[in-house]
């Protein structure tokens, strides 16, 4: 119906290689882009600042992680540490007096260099052992941040993000922060949509599918595994900087703990490994579903329809979040992206379902 293919005849190779060969999808992307661009004009400040903004930033972080886990197939359970490095580097570089634009790049570079250390484990092991190694490194980075006062500003301290300007606009302004986060998310989306069409992306996919086989056909696993960690940590560190400057405004080590790493992996998996639209859906779902469901239960108990103790209510988000991961892994291991794809495929030939077989 919507995703109609009839009447679309590709006569040139460029046409078949487009990102969205079906006109409806181009319209869809355009409408969504318009909606988020106009969001500050029809959404209240509360929804914009506490729902849409974190969703965009976490989607950007999920996109950078899905490049590593979905495209290159390297498991990473310490991604929050990489983002922490980016966030803390950006703040310290701005405090040092660097313009924000350079501090932003510098944060990415520092995160990428340290992120390559995580990758050193990937050169030796894979699968479960890589999970354990990255997990251990997360704890190391956490400890370093907490226990070196020069980084965190002392134990249990929060580090205020200094005021900065991005291209003449002050980041103190809510609108500027929103549009900066939006621009970063769009930039990452465009990069990830296209990376699979480059030789770099194809090499990563070859490594993911079987690294020995890839080296037989001339893809150097050493080089591309490290490059995957470098690129992903670069983007992840910059996403961490965006998170620190646009959303948190003041960072503490707890905001980048191991639980956050798990949450990022959950976003990637719930969304669908290696999928771009999945990163947005997964980040939104993992971030918002526990909040919304808990609010519903709180509302029901306010009406007196459900008897829920305060203690149970405070642990409900954690329970819903855990149950969500279990539910998705059991019911649809390929994630929300697969559900979206199923719907799309259904409408592609609607109402002639029989024609697909």
């Amino acid at each position: 119906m919507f995703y109609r293919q009839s009447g679309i005849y590709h006569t040139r190779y460029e046409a078949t290689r487009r990102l969205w060969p079906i006109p409806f999808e181009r319209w869809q992307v355009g409408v969504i882009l318009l909606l988020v661009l106009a969001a500050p004009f029809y959404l209240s400040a509360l929804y914009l600042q506490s729902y849409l903004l974190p969703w965009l930033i976490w989607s950007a972080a999920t996109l950078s992680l899905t490049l590593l886990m979905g495209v290159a197939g390297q498991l990473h359970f310490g991604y929050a540490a990489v983002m922490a490095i980016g966030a803390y580097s950006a703040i310290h570089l701005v405090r040092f007096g660097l313009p924000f634009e350079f501090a932003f790049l510098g944060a990415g570079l520092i995160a990428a260099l340290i992120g390559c250390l995580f990758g050193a484990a990937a050169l030796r092991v894979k699968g479960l052992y890589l999970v354990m190694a990255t997990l251990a490194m997360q704890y190391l980075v956490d400890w370093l941040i907490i226990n070196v006062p020069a980084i965190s500003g002392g134990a249990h301290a929060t580090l205020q993000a200094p005021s900065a300007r991005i291209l003449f606009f002050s980041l103190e302004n809510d609108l500027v922060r929103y549009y900066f986060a939006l621009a970063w998310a769009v930039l990452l989306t465009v990069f990830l949509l296209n990376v699979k069409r480059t030789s770099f992306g194809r090499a990563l996919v070859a490594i993911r599918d079987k690294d020995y086989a890839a080296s037989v056909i001339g893809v150097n696993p050493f080089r591309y595994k490290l490059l995957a960690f470098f690129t992903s940590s670069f983007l992840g560190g910059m996403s961490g900087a965006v998170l620190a400057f646009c959303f948190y405004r003041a960072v503490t080590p707890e905001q980048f703990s191991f639980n956050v790493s798990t949450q990022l992996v959950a976003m990637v998996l719930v969304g669908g490994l290696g999928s771009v639209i999945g990163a947005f859906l997964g980040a939104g779902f993992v971030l918002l579903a526990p909040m919304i469901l808990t609010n519903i239960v709180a509302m029901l108990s306010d009406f007196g329809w459900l008897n829920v103790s305060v203690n149970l209510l405070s642990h409900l988000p954690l329970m819903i979040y855990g149950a969500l991961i279990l539910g998705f892994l059991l019911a649809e291991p390929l994630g929300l992206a697969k559900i979206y794809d199923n719907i799309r495929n259904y409408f592609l030939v609607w109402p002639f379902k029989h024609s697909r077989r």
Partner: protein
Amino acid sequence: MDFLFLLELFINGLNTGLMYSLVALGITMIYKASGVPNLAQGAMVMIAGYLLWATIALLGLPLWIAIPFVVVLMFLFGLAIERWLLRRMVGQPVLMIVMLTLGLEILLRGVGPGVFDAAPKRLDLGLGLAPLVVADVFINRAYLIGAISAGILILLAAAFFRTRLGTKLRAVSDDHVASWAVGISVERAIGISWGIAGVAAVGAGTLWGSVQGVDWTLSALLFPAIAVVILGGIDSLLGVFVGGIIVGVLGSVIPGYLDPIVGGGTRDVVTSVLIVLTILLRPYGIFGREDIERV
């Protein structure tokens, strides 16, 4: 004096390490049988602790009835997890299985404190708090008894592998298809290994709950337990024993000297460094079996 201090750290580390081994025992049991890394073992320890507290405090049963009761409950709990969660994941990539157990860990970490209230619970085994003093060395009595019980339980687990059922489990851990061919029910063997992991969680939950109280922090025992299995070799019982002792001793001696200098929290660092170094130098641990990969 200095030597005494070292000895004290060493002995208390030894005791702690053996209690870590008890948590790690569950992970090894499951990995041996089914190749599943159970990252929910820490949460299972926590749930066992909560259940034991609930049977004693809420149902009013004495300790010696409560423990067997919780053992039965946790055995069934382990069986249920295997039957309804892990069996449906057979053949999925390791990432999915790791994430499933992590999801279970998060769920249990919400359910335990959510149902039983988040405040730490006291689990009194009647051991007393006064430290044991042997030749001027202070030994924490609870940890000592915990270590002895842990040692006994690990030896029992080793002995269990000599029985008829244990032999079946060893066959299953060697080769699923070959065990099937000679008439061993692989599903049942894996289920039983989960049940036994649940029982091991009761041991760990009782001992750790008595020394640090029952609350969600019990699930954080997962991290040292991971270090134990990585260091000792994830599919080796002897590795659990030796790995536990090394992790415990190093995690006690090094912080004992370093903590005053750098300001605390070095135990987690020692644990992390042990994991990273083991994986970089000898990924399969001290006693683990190396997998050979074919293209």
